[in-house]
């Protein structure tokens, strides 16, 4: 409940404040968002499995975001930033699909 409210508050803040993304953060923000989404779906799945743990969720959330950003940064330094961020997005997308599939099985038993 708190999580959903916080998400809504964040969205409203983003809409109201209309900040611009700093240039240095521009390549990383989308990747970070996808990584965070992955963590959130993993959390939802764990919740449905009944094994949700606050600490683990926080740690996985932060580490997901940091690792994703690090990979893209590394890719940019190596000159393969575009390809590597695509790779990260693909991997995270696969994981999100897997988590969503598990959630779906939980909710619809199908």
């Amino acid at each position, binding site marked *: 409940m708190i999580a959903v409210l916080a998400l809504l508050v964040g969205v409203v803040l983003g809409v109201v404040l209309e900040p611009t993304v700093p240039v240095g953060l521009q390549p990383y923000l989308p990747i970070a968002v996808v990584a965070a989404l992955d963590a*959130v779906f993993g959390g939802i799945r764990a919740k449905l499995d009944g094994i949700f*743990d606050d600490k683990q969720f926080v740690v996985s959330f932060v580490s997901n975001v940091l690792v994703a950003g690090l990979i893209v940064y590394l890719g940019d330094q190596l000159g393969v930033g575009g390809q590597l961020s695509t790779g990260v997005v693909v991997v995270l997308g696969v994981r999100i699909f897997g988590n969503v599939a598990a959630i779906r099985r939980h909710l619809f038993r199908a």
Partner: protein
Amino acid sequence: MTMAGTDDERPGQDKGTAGETAAEGMAAEGEAASDQAAADRTIEISVAQVSAAGDRTVPIRVPVDDRTVELRAAAVGAERERADAYDEEPGGEYEPDTATRPAGKAPRLSAAAAMIGLLLGLLGFALVVQLRSNATDPELATARPEDLVRILSDLDGRQDRLRQEIASLEASQRKLASGVQGQAAALEEARRRADELGILAGTLPAQGSGLQVKFVAGSEAIAASTVLDAVEELRGAGAEAMQIAGEGGSPVRIVASTYFADSKGGLVVDGVRLTGPYTLSVIGDPQTMHTALNIPGGVVDMVHQRGGNVIVQESDTVGVTALHEVVAPKFARPVS
């Protein structure tokens, strides 16, 4: 489970850790689990459950017993999740937790919830910001530097082309503007010339300084040749426009083609019959024309000899208002 199966290396290795953790908590059951076959994994997991989140032991253990097969699927995922958390942490950390749980449970939960709320708020914020920044500039924001360089050079080339186009258009604009000016000047010139020629050809009324010359017949009528002499004399003296008026007809403009003929008791000028006295209105330099008319043996002299009289009157505003009908030339064509 097929999708989740892509990560299967990790769970495989993690199972061991989970098992160890479980062993720390409840050694007896853990050993029992390791003795048993794969089907007993369910039990092993339930052990992990117990040690990790002691407060959930009862709600979880019951379904495990009831539906072993179903839970096994969930348990693999659960095991993995568990193992993630335990990777870096020693299992012993949970012992003080368990000890303080009855008292410290509420504050710890709210702190974690606050952290989760903060993270999710951040996620929502970042999500919206990213969506907005993408919506404002969908192409350039995500483009790589090399693409941006290419786009920039494209734009530079286009800018050059547009600059050239501007330059050429400005040049043609200048040309056209000067053409318009020249046209206006030419039009003005042509209009002025048309006025001059209109006065000369008798198609425009004119006025200016000049003379009024009145021929009054004496014993003899005024002959056409006398009037023609006067007209020639005046032309020689620089007359610019002339008309002749008399009784019995409207005034007649005198132009190059005007003829004078004698008629009974009068003159025929350009087909119009006039009788005396005749008044010649002339625009030109008054002094010169006056002198020209008065030279000895000239027009005035001749008329006096025949008993007539010529009254010459200088005026600043002589009106030559009669117009000559222009007949388009039948044969003559301009050479150009």
